[in-house]
C-alpha cells in the first residue's frame, strides 16, 4: 500500500476511536467518507496517479473505503450500545415507591347497593318507578288499607308536616298505588320503587330517621305466592351468592295478605349462629306478601281477575350485612374516612 494511504488509514482509525458521541462520529464520517471526504477524494484524484499504478491504487483505495465504512458502522453500533447502557444506568428506581394514582371518586355505598338491586331485578323484568318523598296520608296509609285510627299505623312512626294530611312517607309502599294508577289498569306491572323514607324514631346505631327502601310490585293475571318465593330466592342468590337458604315466615302488613318475612341463612356464620344474626342463624332480608285485594282495588285492578305480590327491603341494612357495618349512622354522616372504603 502506498504510504499516503497507510497514513490516512491510521489517522482515520485513530480519529474514529476518539469519536465519543453521535456528533463527533458524524463529523468523522463527513471528514473521511463524506462527499468531499478524504477517502472519497482518493478516488476522485485517481487521475493524478501514474497509469501503471492505477489498478493497485484503485483497489487499495476501495479496500480502505470499505474498511473505514465497516469500522464506522462498528463504532456507531458501539456508541449506541454505550449510550443505551448509560441511559439504563440512570433509570434505576425503587419500584416499591407508591404509584401516582388518578383521583377518582367513589359511589356512596347505599347507591352501590341500590344499583345492584336495580340490576338484579332488571334481569327479571322489573323496572324502576320513582315517586315522591312528601306524601299524603291517603297514599301512605288509607289507600294501603289503613284507614285513620287503624292500629297497624303504629307499625310506622310518622313525621307529620304542618300541612294537615301531608306526611313524610314512612315506606315506599305508596309507590304501589302511584305505579298502578300510572301504568294500569288492565296491564301487567313489574316495577321496583326505590326511594328515601322517614321515620319518627330516635336515631341509634340500628335506627335512622331517614333511610332508603326498595319496594317491588308485580301484578298480573296469574301471579302467585309461589312466584313471589321464586323472585325472592332468585334475588337472594344473585345478591348474597348462589346456594343461599331461605326461610319464609308468616308476618303482617296491612297492604298484603298473606304476608311474609323472608330470612336468608346468615352470610357470616352460615346458620350456625353468631353475634350478627343474634345466634339464630337467619337474617331478615325483606317483608313481602300478596297484594291485598283492597289495595288492588284502590289501584284500579279487579282483585277477582288480577293478583300480585309486593316486597320491600332496606339497602342500608343489606349494605351493613354485606360489609359488616355496625352503625347505620355512618351512611349519612358524610365522613370520607367511611365513604372512601367502599370505592
Amino acid at each position: 500500500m502506498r504510504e499516503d494511504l497507510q497514513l490516512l488509514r491510521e489517522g482515520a482509525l485513530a480519529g474514529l476511536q476518539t469519536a465519543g458521541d453521535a456528533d463527533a462520529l458524524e463529523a468523522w464520517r463527513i471528514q473521511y467518507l463524506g462527499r468531499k471526504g478524504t477517502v472519497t477524494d482518493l478516488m476522485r484524484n485517481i487521475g493524478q496517479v501514474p497509469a501503471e499504478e492505477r489498478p493497485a491504487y484503485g483497489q487499495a483505495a476501495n479496500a480502505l473505503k470499505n474498511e473505514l465504512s465497516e469500522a464506522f458502522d462498528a463504532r456507531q453500533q458501539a456508541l449506541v450500545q454505550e449510550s443505551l447502557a448509560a441511559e439504563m444506568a440512570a433509570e434505576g428506581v425503587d419500584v416499591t415507591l407508591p404509584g401516582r394514582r388518578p383521583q377518582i371518586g367513589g359511589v356512596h355505598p347505599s347507591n352501590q347497593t341500590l344499583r345492584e338491586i336495580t340490576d338484579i331485578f332488571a334481569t327479571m323484568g322489573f323496572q324502576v318507578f320513582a315517586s315522591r318523598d312528601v306524601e299524603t296520608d291517603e297514599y301512605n296509609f288509607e289507600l294501603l288499607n289503613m284507614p285513620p285510627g287503624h292500629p297497624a299505623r303504629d307499625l310506622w312512626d310518622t313525621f307529620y308536616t304542618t300541612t294537615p294530611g301531608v306526611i313524610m312517607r314512612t315506606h315506599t309502599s305508596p309507590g304501589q298505588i302511584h305505579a298502578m294508577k300510572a301504568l294500569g289498569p288492565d296491564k301487567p306491572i313489574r316495577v321496583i320503587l326505590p326511594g328515601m323514607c322517614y321515620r319518627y324514631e330516635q336515631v341509634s346505631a340500628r335506627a335512622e330517621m331517614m333511610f332508603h327502601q326498595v319496594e317491588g310490585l308485580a301484578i298480573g293475571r296469574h301471579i302467585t305466592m309461589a312466584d313471589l318465593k321464586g323472585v325472592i330466592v332468585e334475588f337472594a342468590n344473585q345478591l348474597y351468592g348462589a346456594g343461599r337458604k331461605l326461610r319464609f315466615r308468616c308476618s303482617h302488613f296491612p297492604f298484603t295478605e298473606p304476608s311474609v318475612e323472608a330470612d336468608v341463612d346468615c352470610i357470616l356464620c352460615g346458620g350456625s349462629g353468631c353475634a350478627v344474626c343474634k345466634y339464630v342463624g337467619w337474617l331478615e332480608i325483606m317483608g313481602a306478601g300478596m297484594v291485598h285485594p283492597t289495595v288492588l282495588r284502590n289501584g284500579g285492578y279487579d282483585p277477582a281477575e288480577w293478583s300480585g305480590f309486593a316486597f320491600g327491603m332496606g339497602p342500608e341494612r343489606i349494605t351493613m350485612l354485606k360489609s359488616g357495618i355496625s352503625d347505620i349512622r355512618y351512611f349519612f354522616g358524610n365522613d370520607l374516612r367511611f365513604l372512601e372504603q367502599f370505592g
Partner: protein
Amino acid sequence: MTAIKVPLSWLNDFVDVFDLDPVELAERLTLAGLEVEHIRWVGLNPSDAYHVPADRMGEEDGLPWELDKLFVGEIIRTERHPNADRLLLATVEYGGDKPMTIITGAPNLRPGDSMIKVAFATIGARLVDPYADAYKTMTLKAGKIRGIRSEGMACSERELGISDEHEGIIILPPNAPVGMPLADYMGDAVYSMDLTPNLARDLNIIGVAREVAALYDRPLKRPQPELAALAGIVRPEDMPRPQPPARRFVNIEIPAPDLCHRYTAILIRDVEIGESPGWIKDRLRKAGVRPISNIVDATNYAMLEWGQPTHAFDYDLLVERARQAEGQKSRGAEEQSDSGFSAEASDPLTSDILTSDPLPSVLPTIIMRRARDGEKMTTLDGVERELTSDMLMITDTLGTVAVGGVMGGLETEVNDQTRNVLLEAASFDFINNRRTSQTLRLPSEATARFSKGISAEMPVPAGLRCARLMVELAGGEVVEGIEDCYPTEQHSVTIDLAPAEVRRILGMDVPTAQISDILRHLEFDVEPLGDDENTLRVTVPWFRLDATIPADLIEEVVRIIGYDQIPTTLMDDALPPQWRNWALEGKERVRDLLTGAGLQDIISYRLIGPEVNRKLLAAQGEPVYDPVAGVAVDDRQLPVIFDPEALVRLENPLTPAADRLRSTMLGNMLAALARNARSVDRVALFEIGKVYWPVEDDSLPAEPELISIGLTGVRAARNWSNQNDQMLDFFDLKGVVEELLARLGLLADARFEATVHPLLGVRAARVLIGKNELGVLGEVHPVVRRAFDLPDQRACIAELRLAPLVAAVSYRPAMQSISNFPAVKEDLAVVVDEAVLAEQVEQVIRQAGGSLLRDVTLFDIYRGKQVAAGKKSLAYSLTFQADDKTLKDSDVEKVRKRIIARLGQALGAELRA
C-alpha cells in the same frame, strides 16, 4: 308490634308443651307469624338447636340448671354449726350415694327442721353469683367454714336465676320427688314475643295456646270452668249470656254506645287486701309484670292469661260517691242523665233474696259518656289532663272516675282498706281507644290490648275468671250474677271461600279437606255453601276480629301448612312492556362522570334545622364586589334568594335540628366540607338528591333533584413526587362543571357569566345552557365559610339542576374528520383592557380564524411592568390545520393577520411587543 312474655309453664296449663323442644316450638311459632324474639331459660336446658354459646349467655338469656348437678333435695336433719352461732348444718338427701351436709344461714330454716324439700345444688353446679354487683355466674365450690365442710347448697331464687329474691332458700312443696333433676321438676323457659297488630287475639297465654294447639294438632286444655264453658262455641251469638245478679248492685248507663260497646261488672265481697302467693308472683314476674297486691295481681294475671284488661274499683268508695251525689241532688243541684242504654237487672226493692250484709240503699251508677271539650281530669299518675269530646269517660253521678279503657282514677282505686271490689270488664271501640291513649300519651298494658281490638264477648268469661282468682287470692266471695250492659253487640262474620282461590293466590294445590281441617283446628266453623261443593262457608270464631275476607283465610291455611311447602316458581305471567329509563340512566351517568372527575358521592340528611339556614344566610347584607375589578359596588348588597322560613316544616320533629326539609343542598355540602376538611387534605364531594320547594296552592311541595358539588383543600395530595400544595379554586370547580357538560354534549351551548349570590364571594358565576339557567358555582363567601366553621382556605361549591343533564343523556356526538396533514402551532400574545373577558377574546379569535384554526388554548395571563396599567396580556397557542393539504407559512400568516386585525377592531387589542 306489641311485646308479650310467655312462660312455658303457664302455657302448659292450656296445651301440652313440655314434651316439645322449646327452641323448635319457638321456631314453629315464629314461622306461623308469632315471632319469638328471645328465649330466657329459667332452669330448662336448651337443645342443640339453641345457638347461643353458654359463655355468651347473659342475665336476659337465663340459667339452665344442669341435670346432673341440681336436684330436688330433702333436708333430713338441721342442727347448729358447732363453731358458729348463726349458721346451721343441714343434711340433705338428694338421690346421691349418701346424704350431703351443707352449711347455711338461711333465715327460713331452724335447728331441728326436717322433711323440708329444697332446690339442692351439688359441688360444681353453675349458679348465679348472689353477691356480685352485676349479673355473673359462678361454679359452686366445696367450702370449709370453721372446720366443717359444706358439700352443696340449698338455693335461693337469685342463685337459680329465677328472680332477685335472696332472703331465704326456696322451699318446695312436700310432694316434690327427691332426687329428680330440678330442671325436670320446675324448669321453665320464657318466650319474649313481638306480635303484629293482626294478632291482637294472641296477646295472652290462652291465645298463644290456641295457636300451639292448631300447629301441633293438640287439644286445648280447659282447666277453668270459664274456659270449659266456651268449648265448641264459634259464633258470638252463641256465647252464654250472663245471668243478672239477684239484687242489682250497680247501675250502668252507656250514652256513648259507639265508643263503649259493652260494660260488665262483678261484685266481689269481703276480700282482704294482701300479698299474692308465690306462684302468682312467680308467673307475673316471668311475664314481666310487677306484683303489687292480690287484687291488682289478679286483674293483671287474668289480663295476661285471657287478654282482657279489667279494672278493680273499691265498691264502697263508689257507693260513698253515689251518696254524696244523692245529697247534692236532694238539694236540687243537678239534672240527671237519662239517655242511652242501661243494664236490665232485677229491681233492688222487689228482690226477695236478702243477704246478711244487705246492699246499700243508694247504688252507684257507672255512666260511660263522651268527655266535654276542655273537661279536666286528674289521672292515676297525678297529672291533670284536658279532655276532648272524642274521649270516652267513666263517670258516676258525682263526676268523672276514669278515662275509659285508658287509665283509672285515683279516687276509686282499690287500696289497703278495700273490702268490696267492683270488677269492671268492658269492651271499647279500639280505634277510639288508640287515639285517646295516644293523645293523652298514656300507653299501658291495657291500652296495648284494647287499642288492637278485643272481642266484646271476652269481658264476661275473663271477668269471671278474674273474680274467681280474686277470691282465691284474697278470700271473700263473688256475688252471683253479672251486671251487663251490652248495647253494641258483636255479630258473627262468615266468609265464603272457594278452594280454587287458595290455589290462585298461593300457586299450590291444597285439598279442600285440608283447608277445612286447618280452619277447624283454628276453631273456625266450616260448612259447604249450600249445594255448592266448590265453596266453603266459613264462620270466624268469636274471639277473632282480624278475619273478614277470603285472603285472611288463605293466610291462615298457609301459615299452618308452612310457607316452606309452597313451591318456588318463576313468573310465567305476561312480561309487562319494558322501557328505557332515561331518567335513571341519566342520573347514574352523571354520577359516574362526577366520580370519574375525582369526586366522592355523598348522601346527606334531607331534614335540616334553622341553624343551617342561619349559616347559609350569614353573608346577607354584605356588600357586592365587582367580579373582575374586585372592588365593592356602591349601594349593592347580596340578594336574598330564599326565605328560610318558607319551607316544608315538620309538625313533630325529633329534634329542632331536623325540623324542616331542605330547599337547597348547599347547606349539607358546606357542612360535609367542614366535617372532612380538617382530617383530609383534599375534599372533593358531590351529591345528587332531592330538595323540597313549597308550591303555592298545592299542599305537596315540588321535589326537584339537584346536584351539589364541593371542593376544598389541595389539588393533589402531597406525596414523594409532588411537593406542590396548590389549592383547589374556582377554576377547578368550573373545570368539573365544564367536563360534565362536555361529556353530555352541552358545553358548546353553555355560558358562564359572573353573578352575585348570597353564599358566594366575588368568584361567582351562573351557568346557562342556551337561555336556561342550570345553576351557580363559585367560591364560598368568607363570612359563610366562617359560619360553617370551614378552615381558612378557599372552598368551592356548585348547585345544578339535574333535569337538563338527564335530558342530554342520549347525546351521541357526530364524528369530526381527522386530518392527515400536519398541524402548525403558533403563539399569539395580545394586550387588552382588564375589562375585556377571556371569553370575548377567544370568540373573536375563533371567528377570525375560520376553519383552519383548529384549537385555541390560553396559556398565559400577564399583568405587570411590561404592559400598561389597567391592561393585561393574554397569550394563546393557536393550532392551524387543513383537511386537504399541508399548510404553507403564507396560509397561516394570512389567517394570523386577520385574527390580529379583528382583535384590534373588536376589542382594542394590540399585539404584545
